[in-house]
């Protein structure tokens, strides 16, 4: 039996455990075991993006060590954490003869969740059902960071009963940007406003994302503005069978 390593991400672990559970359920339904290495914490992206590379390295080294004790593919329900493993870890350890190969080895095992389902397992239909409209926001790091876009769209296209509607200007950033939402809140607020306006234009009550960062950002904005739309991680939509 195949078993995958789940890198659940700090945001899902701390704020949205139901997303992680949905990922586990989906793999179990596909006959695939899920292993969760308990020493995992965060990928280190906040420190990396802020330019604090020393701190990012410490977290990255920790994460590499945790997963070196495991075998099998690493799957994460986040395009930006997959991007961190795949592109930023090698960047962090460039020129380091000890850590660079270890970072590359980790990168080679890592897949974003929908990418793994579609490209690695060849699954596009999980038997999920939905009643009503769905619209999809492609997270920046999923779309442009690791070039994963057709995969989540293919999975959503096979959700029975769901009416998929296009989100205007879908490819625009929602304004989360990790620390940018704190360092430059004025910019973040403008983009969030635009994202919410575009969501309202679709009339869809549900926005689907592949990253918990965008989820907490857009959902937090909707709650502040007293809007009724909800934001869901794609795993939770696909878990709905």
């Amino acid at each position, binding site marked *: 039996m195949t078993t995958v390593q789940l890198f659940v991400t700090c945001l899902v672990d701390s704020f949205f455990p139901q997303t992680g559970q949905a990922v586990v359920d989906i793999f179990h339904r596909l006959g695939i075991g899920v292993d969760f290495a308990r020493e995992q914490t965060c990928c280190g992206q906040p420190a990396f993006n802020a330019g*604090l590379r020393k701190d990012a390295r410490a977290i990255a080294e920790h994460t590499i060590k945790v997963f070196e004790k495991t075998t099998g593919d690493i799957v994460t329900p986040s395009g930006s954490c997959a991007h961190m493993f795949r592109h930023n870890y090698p960047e962090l350890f460039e020129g380091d003869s000890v850590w660079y190969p270890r970072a590359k080895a980790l990168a080679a095992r890592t897949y974003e969740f929908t990418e793994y389902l579609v490209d690695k397992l060849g699954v596009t*239909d999980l038997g999920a059902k939905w009643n009503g409209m769905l619209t999809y926001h492609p997270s920046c790091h999923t779309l442009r960071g690791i070039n994963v876009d057709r995969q989540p769209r293919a999975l959503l296209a096979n959700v029975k009963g769901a009416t998929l509607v296009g989100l205007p200007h879908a490819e625009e950033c929602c304004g989360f940007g990790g620390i940018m939402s704190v360092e430059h809140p004025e910019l973040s607020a403008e983009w969030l406003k635009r994202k919410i306006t575009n969501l309202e234009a679709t009339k869809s009550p549900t926005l689907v994302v592949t990253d918990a960062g965008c989820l907490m950002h857009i959902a937090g904005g909707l709650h502040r503005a007293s809007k009724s739309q909800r934001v869901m991680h794609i795993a939770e939509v696909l878990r709905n069978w």
Partner: protein
Amino acid sequence: MNTFRQRILESINNENLQIALDNNTERRLKGRALAFESIPDWRERRQRAHAVRADVIDHLDKYLEQFIAKNEENGVIIHRAKDAAEAIQIVLDISKESPQRHRENQKEISVHLRSSLVNSVLIAKSKSMVSEEIELNHALEKEGIEVIETDLGEYIVQLRHERPSHIITPAAHLKKEQVGELFHEKLGIPYTTDIPTLTATARKVLREVFLTADIGLSGVNFGVAETGGICLVTNEGNGRMVTTLPPVHIALMGMERLVPNLDDLALMLSLLPRSATGQKLTVYTQLLHKPLPNQQRHLILLDNGRSRLRNSPLKESLYCIRCGACLNACPVFRELSGHAYIGSDLSIAPYPGPIGSVISPGLLGENYVQLAQASSLCGACKEVCPVDIDLPKLLTRVRADMSPSPSGRGARGEGGAGLSSSTRFGLQLFARVATRPWLFAVSQKFASLGTFLLSPISRWVRLPAFTGWGLSKDFPRFAGKTFRDGYKNTSVDGELLNRPVYKLSKPRFTPAHSNTLPLFDIQFSTELAALGGHVHSTHNPTLDVIQLLKSRGVDKIHLEPNTLDEILLRAASIEFTHEPDPQITVGVTNAICGLADTGSVLIVDGAGDPLKASLLPEIHIVILKSSNILPSLPAALRFVKNTSAAVFITGPSRTADIEMTLTIGVHGPKEIYVFLTT
């Protein structure tokens, strides 16, 4: 709140600016996408362009040596400037040595030109971002030299005493009402918001400048190492004016702007205009080799931090070809415009947008590192970059204090450049927690309790605005039971999915080239007509030109020798001269060849001054043999190699500098007629 954030807020709250910026973003992105449809192999071209630029930067010394030697052979005077001060001094020295034209006899000197003008050196300048980088205008004016910007957008911002807000569209931040008021106030015309009237006013004023300037100063888009060629692209025609009319031409060039050969140039030219303005080719694509007769040409190669940048982790930023696409795609630029990109000393960065947030600190130092923090690293910039520069990666390197220090000490600081101290402290604390799994789990518990106490009823915590997050959104409560709490390593208890499993079908194959060969003259006509040009097939071009001239009431033309039957012209009482004359409204030239895929014609320097005949008059008539229409630019560049100067003309002169509204006929001809002969 720091001043950078205040400046951002001012931009966001400036309604006119936001309308102008939305307009810029939408039109430019749409235009770019449309233009790329005509080159289905653009992905491959982009990778090739990346490789070409990487090769140039890796072997810059070799290519520079080749480029300089060729230019010296061509009679161009080469200067190398290691920094801004040296470059400025070189321009000052040239200005002092240049003979001044006599402007006392000039019939009228426009109201806006200083009265002292008759006694001072006048420089007509076309767009150059390098000149912005070294703050050339300011330095020259201090020495009593009059510098007049001639690109419409640059002219507008110069009259407003501003810096350009965009590297391609300098006045992108202004509305036509503001330009109307400006021209009313500074140029004395009645207030109008009619863009063609505003453009025509600038044409009139600046024409005088072109004709009387002592020196023409331009930037350089590409230098071709193999031929020494200086490539300049402009839409309005001012780039041609300043390089053709004044007795002295100074070209100011960042020393990294080279391509190895003409094939590489053709590749770059297939990407630059598409990315910059959504054009298949810029209206005037010039290649200058030798100075024109009675002209002196100086080429200033500027380092100003480029060598340092080349040996730093930001090296890739030197691949940039200054198309401005990353500005148009950037959601930060869309809120800010160029004027809000400020350094810690409050000065406006010379280069805005994502590339600017890398090269402004990269070239000019620490003052501008704070710009790199204003990005969500969304990657829209990288996606549109024609040479595939990994801008998000470079931005994180600037943030990590990996930009070179002007003092030459290499990387400075411990990272987190431009970061607020509270965020830095928080992230460093978080790193300590995240490397200790037990502490991480305990912290989650405390955080859960904390957010529960802050918001016992709602799942969302209403944070105050000063936290940053709380400005526009609520914060989720930490889960009472985290994923790690609930997780039990279980074996598979679900049954295998019992439904058919579908694989994704392979993306459908679309052939890059259609099987039928295009008829080049039809394609040529279609392309040129789309740009507002006129194409006619003819068996007797002279008779057709005479008919056109009569219909327009024209009886005097500037004619390139051996183009039309001069006996027939005389018989029809059409006066012609082979000398340029600013009063003449029609110029007739031959074209060496045409380009089918862009509707362009190639004009090269020669007897009868066809370069000026195709530039100064309002109407340009071209005689082109239809068998000389080539498929595209690469096939035509071999004709350019041995010319002293050449220009590919793609449609009538145009601008979109005011509100992105396309206006035909700025400095060059308003109309172009091509007569195709068999």
